[in-house]
């Protein structure tokens, strides 16, 4: 626990560097592109259109306002998937900085998550605008939105610390990552509601914290109700536990980075 606190303190002290690095990420990513930041919203929008075509038109899922529902889950999922993919590579990608930086190495996965979070947050006005267009007017449940973001952040960060530190030694992890994220996407209720999962199988969803994170977004944005209290609290506990585990594993491996990079 003391290690956990020490990590948190050092990260807090490096917040200036983290800020600058996130800005660097954002600048570097869209420099030279015509549409710039819009891409962070266009990509999920393109996804949404294809899903809409496949599930609403071809497979004829009977669901009111399916487009709006899709969007509520797709944007946070995009944050999660790109953040995890990028942060897993972050130690390797920044190898020269990792060994010489005055700041703790945790900042690199943190920056990947942070810059993707910023994209997510920047696309929120567009999301809310579209929801209103689709006739889903936000209600007071929106107040839960930041809570869901925080929980997702904790969960992603914990997982990222594990993946980033293990990927330094087991590079195969980076090869599996896209496939794993793809499969994960399908077992997570992003383009279908939790209620479509047969009740017998639903306890299995508890093994996948992202299921109830996405479900919470759909609750506060689309259904305009509070997140499921039991499941969501469980996810919160899991996220904190994962973060502690991540910080521990990262700490244990930190000294070997230089040798293995």
């Amino acid at each position, binding site marked *: 626990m003391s290690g956990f606190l020490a990590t948190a303190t050092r990260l807090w002290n490096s917040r200036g*560097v983290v800020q600058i690095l996130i800005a*660097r990420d954002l600048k570097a990513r869209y*420099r*030279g592109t015509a549409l710039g930041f819009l891409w962070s919203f266009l990509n999920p929008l393109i996804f949404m259109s294809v899903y809409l075509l496949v599930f609403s038109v071809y497979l004829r899922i009977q669901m009111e306002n399916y487009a709006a529902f899709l969007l509520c889950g797709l944007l946070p999922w995009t944050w999660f998937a790109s953040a995890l993919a990028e942060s897993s590579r972050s130690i390797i990608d920044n190898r*020269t*900085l990792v060994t010489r930086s005055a700041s703790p190495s945790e900042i690199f996965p943190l920056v990947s998550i942070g810059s993707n979070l910023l994209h997510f947050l920047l696309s929120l006005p567009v999301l809310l605008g579209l929801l209103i267009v689709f006739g889903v007017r936000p209600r007071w449940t929106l107040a839960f939105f930041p809570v869901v973001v925080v929980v997702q952040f904790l969960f992603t960060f914990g997982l990222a610390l594990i993946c980033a530190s293990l990927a330094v030694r087991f590079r195969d992890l980076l090869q599996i990552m896209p496939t794993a994220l793809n499969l994960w996407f399908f077992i997570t209720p992003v383009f279908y509601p939790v209620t479509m999962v047969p009740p017998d199988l639903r306890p299995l969803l508890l093994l996948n914290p992202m299921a109830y994170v996405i479900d919470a977004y759909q609750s506060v944005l689309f259904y305009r109700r509070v997140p499921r209290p039991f499941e969501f609290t469980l996810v919160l506990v899991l996220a904190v536990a994962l973060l502690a585990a991540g910080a521990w594993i990262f700490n244990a491996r930190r000294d070997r980075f*230089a*040798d293995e990079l």
Partner: protein
Amino acid sequence: MPPAICLRGVSKSFRRRTERDPRTLKSYLLRDLWRPRAPSGPHQVWALQDVDLTVEKGTTVGIIGRNGSGKSTLLHIMGGMLKPTTGTVRVEGRASALIELGAGFHPELTGRENVLVNGLLLGLSKREVRDRFDSIVSFAELHDSIDEPMRTYSTGMYMRLGFSVAVHLDPDVLLIDEVLAVGDLPFVEKCRERMNEFKRRGKTIVLVTHDLNTAQTWCDHAVWIHQGRVSAAGDPSMVVSAYCRGMGMAVPMAAGQAPQMLALAVTPGNEGTVWIPGATGAAAFIVATMNVGAAGVLTVSVETGAARLPLSLTICQIEPVTGARLTPPAPTFSLRVKSGETPTLGVFIQGWDRVPFDPASHRIYIHFVDEGAVTRGATSVGVATRATG
């Protein structure tokens, strides 16, 4: 006053990655995660072993040794970029490493943005970066392109900016890994000037170098690392000649240095060489006195590294006087000596300053080939040399 750098019993091992060493996640989870791996075994390579080293504040220390001897590893450990496997490292104050210059720059960002990011990561505050920014840019001579993305920079520009950021960290200890070869001649001069300023301000410098002349003339101490261990440490001339002798190599001597006996060991039937870095003045006069312990052929030759030799070169035997010789473009002078003779050779050179500057290849070799392959034990040739700049 505590020393600037203090290494006690420092060893560093690396795992050799081989095909037979499948680094599977399973084996890792089963074994390594729960107990630390013993740092031994066939796949373990020791880059450094039991290094004890103290660098006093304000001194300049040169580290010499062959490729792969562990010099860079040592520098990385001093800079905290590598953790020693065993032993302790203590560094007083901020250390800045001039290693892999500019490696942290992002090609898509402008020089200006990169300076900020790099400066912050290396431990400066935003304010410090802002205050030093102009100085960093002007030192790197990048006024015109500082707002261009760095992918448009040439390698030299990259290095210059990296160097400039590193020296502007205002470190207490500067760790340099042969980066003075960065950039063109004027920039190298500027770097040297900057290094000298560091010395004057009482900062500590540790320099890994292959230029033995630099090690001798510029460093207060030298350390010879051989196969991961400290083979010799102390006075630079002593360490350099120990290094050269240890390598069966030539012993260099800096121009302007006081006459000195350089022992040259010659194994029977073999050859020994002494080399003297060329003087950099207009003329040089080198006197070599040899105490030959056995009969053999003594050869003096001059190498300049230049295709043509715009040199006036005289090699003569002064005592006993036998005459003079002038033999460019491949000037060599050979002399058959009998056992017990002590011939003195004079080498008079004019026009070093007209040869393209390349200190590494300006050398005068004194070879001795021992004919007495039957002689028991080693024969030695002592050379007293005086070079005038």
